[in-house]
Every structure is written in structure tokens, then in C-alpha cells.
């Protein structure tokens, strides 16, 4: 199966790979895993006092599509409000990356990671 150019771009040059301090009250951490492929994803957001996501980082252990999905959403989320980020759907991700049907679950993983990060951030406020 061939990866799309968009996937390859994010896979070869992933944006925002890294880790933030989980204990920071401004940081929300979302962790999810897909048993079907054994992929694990950690997504973190840093939210300022105005409720805007000013930074996002991820670390994904998985296939190219899972890495590309998380890389893409970290770019998208910067500058968004929590509500806007919470509206990102896996279909937006899979369309942007032209994911084939067998890889849709990678975009589901990214959507769920965003939600989990937001829930974690809110639980700290």
C-alpha cells in the first residue's frame, strides 16, 4: 500500500515531536492506544490563560499514518480554542492526509487523543 504525499511529508518531517511537563497545570495530556495495530499515541496541549492552545506536542509509536495524523493535528490545534480543537473529527484528518480506508483508525486515534488531552486539561482547572 502506498502512502500519500501528505502522509510521507509528515512522516519524514514530523512537526512538534516532544514532551511537555505533565504536572504543569497549563498542560493537558492525552494518551490512547489502538489494539488492532498496537499503536500508542501521546498528545499534549499547552493552554494559555485566554483558553487558547499555544503549543502542542506528540509522541506516537506506530505506523506512518498514525504519526502523520498526530503531527497534522498538533499543527492544526495551535491557536485554536479548546472548543475548536474538540471539534476536529477523524474525517477531517483522513481527508487532509488522503488516508485509505484500512488506515482510518489512525485518524480515529488522533481524534481520541485530542479529546483525552482536553479532558485531562479541564480536570486540572
Amino acid at each position: 500500500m502506498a502512502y500519500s504525499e501528505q502522509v510521507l511529508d509528515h512522516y519524514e518531517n514530523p512537526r512538534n515531536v516532544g514532551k511537555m511537563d505533565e504536572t504543569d497545570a497549563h498542560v493537558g495530556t492525552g494518551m490512547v492506544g489502538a489494539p488492532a495495530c498496537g499503536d500508542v499515541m501521546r498528545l499534549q496541549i499547552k493552554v494559555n490563560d485566554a483558553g487558547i492552545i499555544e503549543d502542542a506536542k506528540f509522541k506516537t509509536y506506530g505506523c506512518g499514518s498514525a504519526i502523520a495524523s498526530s503531527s497534522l493535528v498538533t499543527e492544526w490545534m495551535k491557536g485554536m480554542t479548546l472548543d475548536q480543537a474538540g471539534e476536529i473529527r477523524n474525517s477531517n484528518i483522513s481527508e487532509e492526509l488522503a488516508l485509505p480506508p484500512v488506515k482510518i483508525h489512525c485518524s480515529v486515534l488522533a481524534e481520541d487523543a485530542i479529546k483525552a488531552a482536553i479532558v485531562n486539561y479541564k480536570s486540572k482547572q
Partner: protein
Amino acid sequence: MDISQDFFSCYGLSRDFAIDLDGLRQAHRHLQQQHHPDRFVSQPDSDQRQAVQITAYLNQAYATLIEPLKRGIYLLQLHGMDPLVPTNTSMPLDFLLQQIEQQERLEDMHQAQDPETEMDTMAFELQTQASQLETEFAQAYSSAQFEAAETAVRKLQFIVKLQQQLNTLEGVLLD
């Protein structure tokens, strides 16, 4: 032979996680010989086709039951569950943290001073984890706690993937 029956029934096994593996191997060999397509070359086309179908069914049945992970997934599927449904991405947090640690360990293996020993240690730990999860699954399944059984088999899927990654890495680093 009825190829619409479940894989346990075709070998005369009861539908359980703990199965007699030697018994399975013997029963499989026996059925495989009995239905081998080579035995039907002088028979009508329909018999030959049937032998091929039965052989394909037996291969799938054996491959499913011989592997603990596949056997566990199959048992839950017979129960109407789908433990690997891609839309369920929530796993216990401590388990995911452990997964990330283990993935980082694999990544760092390239810089290890003694990768062979490190990889042996990790292989042993993964095998221990896998055995524990198999025990957890067996206990949960036999006491009809299907959700606990599902959690155990979902975790086992991650461990088996790590084992495969470690095997691949061993091939790369030790050659």
C-alpha cells in the same frame, strides 16, 4: 466435514482458552491427512473442490487456535464481541504509560552497550507479561467476566506487537 462449525468443534475441543495443544496438533494432522487434496485427484471435481475448501478451513482453524492471542480473540468473537474494534482507543492509563516506556526502551536499544543482554532481558519480561495476561484472560473467560477478558486480550495484542518489534530489532542489531 462441516466447515460452518466453529474451530473448537471441528477438533472435538471444548470452547475454552485452556486447550490441550498436543491434542490439537494430533487432531489437526489427522484431519489434514484425511482431507488432503492430493487424495482426491482421481475423484470428481466437486470432491476436489471440497477437499481444497476443507484444507483452507483447517489451516485457518489451526492457526487461530494454536496462538494464545488469536484463540482469545476468537473466543470473544464467538461470544459476539470484537476486542480489536478500531473505534475503541481507550486503554488503562498505566498500561499506556508502560507501553511508551517499553517503546522508548526499544528505541534506545541502538545505543545500548550490551544490546544482546538488554534484548534478552526485555524478551524475558515481555514473555512474563504475556503469560500473566493469558492467565488473566483464562480466569476471566471461564468465570464469564467477558469485559475483563476483553481488556486482557487487548493488552496482550500490544505485548505481542512489542515481541515482534523486538524480534525484528534483534535481526538488525545482532547480525
